[in-house]
């Protein structure tokens, strides 16, 4: 086999890796990573702040939507959630529901 054909095959496999939809859709967003500073790495809070990891996406979405609308009482999250788009809320809920 020639070096060229080998390289092409390797590059094909690299191309597949880049196009992998799971990575594109489930990679963490910058917003999701910022949550860890209060909620712990991957949402696994070790202390007084609620754990996000593994909670149902529906529950997380309801909470964030409620904070954003001001209908759910909070100390901090009502101020932060107003800065998230609805699409980001869906992505955050999905992301943290998948952390185990």
């Amino acid at each position, binding site marked *: *086999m*020639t*070096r060229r054909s*080998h390289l092409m*095959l*390797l590059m094909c*496999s*690299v191309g*597949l*890796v*880049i196009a*992998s939809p*799971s*990575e*594109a859709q489930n*990679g*963490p*967003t*910058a*917003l999701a*990573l*910022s*949550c*860890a*500073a*209060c*909620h*712990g*790495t991957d949402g696994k*809070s*070790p*202390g*007084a*702040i609620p754990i996000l990891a593994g909670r149902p996406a529906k529950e997380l979405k309801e909470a964030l939507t409620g904070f954003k609308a001001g209908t759910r009482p909070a*100390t*901090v999250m009502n*101020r*932060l959630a*107003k*800065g*998230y788009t609805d699409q*980001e809320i869906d992505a955050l809920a999905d992301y943290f529901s998948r952390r185990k």
Partner: protein
Amino acid sequence: MTRITRRSFTAMAGAAAGASLAMPGIAFGAGARIAVIGGGFGGATAARYLKRLDPNLNVTLIEPSAKFITCPFSNLVLGGLKTMDDITHGYDGLTNGGVRVIRASAQGIDPSAKRLSLSTGTAVPYDKLVLSPGIDLNFGALPGYDQAAAEKVPHAWKAGAQTLLLKRQLEAMADGGTVIIVCPDNPYRCPPGPYERASMIAHYLKTKKPKSKILILDAKESFSKQALFQEGWQAVYGSMIEWLPGKAGGKVTAVDAKAMTVKTEFGDQKGAVINVIPPQTAGEVARAAGFAEPSGWCTVDVNTFQSKANADTYIVGDAAIAGQMPKSGFSANSQAKVVALAIVDGLNGRKPTPPAFANTCYSLVAPKYGISVANVYRVTEQGLVSVEGGVSPIGQPAQFRSQEATYGQGWYDSITMDMFG
């Protein structure tokens, strides 16, 4: 032409396929060398998240101290609520996570050769550099306040020996003394920090030396979380804390450590204990490499925190000019993650992950009395700005303030875990 055997090719392809199944997207980033200077909130977070996002990267963290003492919560040490041990963290979690930790200081950066020289004499070559050097105290800025003066009049703005020096001075002070806190103009590390410090010193004095006073001499006309602090001070400490804004005689123009006085436009003020928080700049290593502008701080592209002076260098934390984001540990942590994503996306030829930033900062007015500021930041046509957020409301019941104090502790537990594993 080089020939490749069927067996070796199958093995290589198999390895590539195996790697892509286990860790999608590592192909181009494999083996890239990332050097991170500074093991604080920005640097430790960047090192940890680079390795988490792409386990094949070679990540080296360069930090001179064996352990890191956090500035956040160091005011609580002054208040007697925490010990130094409580705010001291080791790097074992980073090492266990695959980060190579070198105990040395970076003495020089050669951006064209992409090489660092360390205090140990070793050279560290890199492909990408993350700089999180923190601050240097600008000892030339306030006449009379230099390194020697700081041994008598502590700054305690880098947690450690200076924190303990200030604490010992407070303990040695007679009841009825005046503690002076000198605050700089913006920008500086931790905007609400001086006022939390006044609160924690007041907590100590109220308990042990109730006739004493605290005088805050401020170069500014207003300060972070001002209404919340002033409401809390009034409620908890009565008239113990007095704050003088710049135009009302708060601006300090010189320090006399020997006489224990500070000079203002309205005359001299004498303190039994004086804490001078001087003006600051980005850490020396960043300035020496030419990454800082004349103000002493480093300009970055706020989408990625890539240095405007060098494309292979990223600068996070207090050293960077980060639009409306405050110089806080949370900001540094948030910026470091954007940098880790930018580096990993770039090395892997992926579309850049859109940046988003947050900052939440708790201050303690008293043991069960917390206040906060929380913002979401985005890059807009106006630069890196707060799009939502603000301070917690005033006029809240004790239960609310107690909850904020509890969450402040929760924040500390989470962010230190996020940095150090």
